[in-house]
């Protein structure tokens, strides 16, 4: 099984719609632990990706590379840069392909996680988007290469990551200065990744 260009473009539609829907929620979550711009970052990035959707090259690697640039161009906020970093990593691996083998998705996510970790110089377990990605990468690895299983696994993983880290203190980014005040609050980046993943898998 594999993700075709059509499925990929459809996922873009769903993610773009999801971040518009979650605009206020993400700004508010980031407002509580940071500068309150995460909804802005996500909508800016996804809008410009959505705008160039039809001109995206057939080479899915090149397409992902342009999606990455959409984020680096549209925002200087950490999350946009991290998204771009992750997309760039997948883009390199997929360079020359027309579609994505579902069996390779877990590896692509793990690769993105690692590059984003280098970029942000943060540890896993720090209550960040990295942990969401890590959960999803592992869940999709163990899931059979059956699309439906992967969808369910990915959706469960982003929720579980939030549940597991909610009561831990933030240790990274602007949220770090809140220390224990952040206990009980969801990490905004993990919330954003939940929106993205669930929309991507059409859950």
């Amino acid at each position: 099984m594999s993700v075709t260009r059509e499925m990929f473009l459809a996922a873009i539609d769903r993610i773009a719609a999801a971040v518009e829907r979650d605009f206020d929620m993400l700004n508010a979550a980031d407002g509580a632990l940071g500068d309150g711009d995460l909804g802005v970052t996500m909508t800016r990035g996804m809008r410009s990706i959505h705008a160039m959707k039809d001109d995206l090259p057939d080479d899915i690697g090149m397409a992902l590379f342009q999606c990455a640039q959409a984020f680096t161009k549209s925002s200087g906020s950490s999350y946009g840069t991290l998204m771009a970093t992750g997309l760039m990593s997948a883009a390199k691996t997929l360079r020359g392909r027309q579609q994505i083998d579902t069996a390779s998705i877990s590896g692509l996510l793990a690769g993105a996680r690692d590059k984003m970790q280098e970029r942000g110089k943060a540890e896993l377990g720090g209550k960040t988007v990295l942990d969401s990605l890590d959960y999803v990468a592992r869940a999709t690895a163990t899931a059979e290469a059956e699309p439906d299983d992967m969808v369910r696994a990915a959706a469960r993983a982003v929720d579980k990551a939030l549940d597991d880290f909610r009561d831990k203190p933030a240790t990274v980014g602007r949220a770090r200065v809140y220390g224990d005040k952040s206990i009980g609050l969801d990490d905004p980046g993990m919330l954003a990744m939940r929106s993205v993943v669930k929309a991507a898998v059409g859950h």
Partner: protein
Amino acid sequence: MKKILNNPEDYVDEMLAGLTAAHPEYYRLHGDSGRVVARAKPGKDGKVGIVTGGGSGHLPVFTGYVGDGLLDACAIGDVFASPSAEQIADAIRAADTGAGVLRLYGNYGGDVMNFDMAGELVEFDDIVCSTVLLADDVASAPPEEREKRRGVAGMVYAFKIAGAAAAEGRELDGVTAVAQTAADACRSIGVALSPCTVPQAGKPTFEIAEDEMEMGMGIHGEPGVWRGKLQSADQIAGEMMDRLLSDMPITGDDRVSVMVNSLGATPPEELYILYRTVKARIEDAGATIIMPLVGRYATSMEMAGVSFTLCKLDDEMEKLLLAPCDCAFWRV
């Protein structure tokens, strides 16, 4: 505090339009992002470029220090937000004359990610980059975690010293080395009396009672070391000097420059009242003060408060600090 602005979305772009219109002899916009300011008269070929960047709302930091004997280009983001990696890459391209570019900026997570990524983007332009981070705010992390500290007003010393070294014609390694020495020689601490308002947020960065101050608060309102009743100028200056000197002791042979900096609303009258104590404390230690800087060098818009920065000089840094420089906000 009230602000004079139009659409908050346009605050930074209109500010840059006015800045470049008022001082065309110093500043020009570079590239199409509208957020990259470069020297009106670029450094001559073979001069190492120096680039900085960060959020808006700190004038003269960052953009203001683009100038002769200072910085070559700057990328700035929205108020208190990092510029994008693409914008930083444009600034690096503007600053490059073939001799490589030093990225000299403050230690904030978002900025670090974007400067790193920008470095990767300009690798395709065959531009060699080095990096020096300012981490001078002693209140933001203990000495054993110095690398986690935030960069504040100390960057002005680093801009000046690195800028003079580049103007002298040193190579990238030399400029980078002295910039690092300067960054390591700076210690800063701030005290906040009242907040400022980020235009797009529309509300103050923090709340504080009419009779309170916060020692060690960051320039974006990051929590400090204690909050309590507003103290006298002499008490405030005394504690700030205690904290700086316990982090970086000075002795009789030392030559130091010191900056007494307003975060914005605090008037020079009060800076001079504070300077009495600063000078006394340094001279009590037997050290010599070189070129004290009293004024508004690194601000947070209309925030009320002050920061002190100590910069311990060696002969080389002293010479570079006293070398000429010229921008719309500072001339030596």
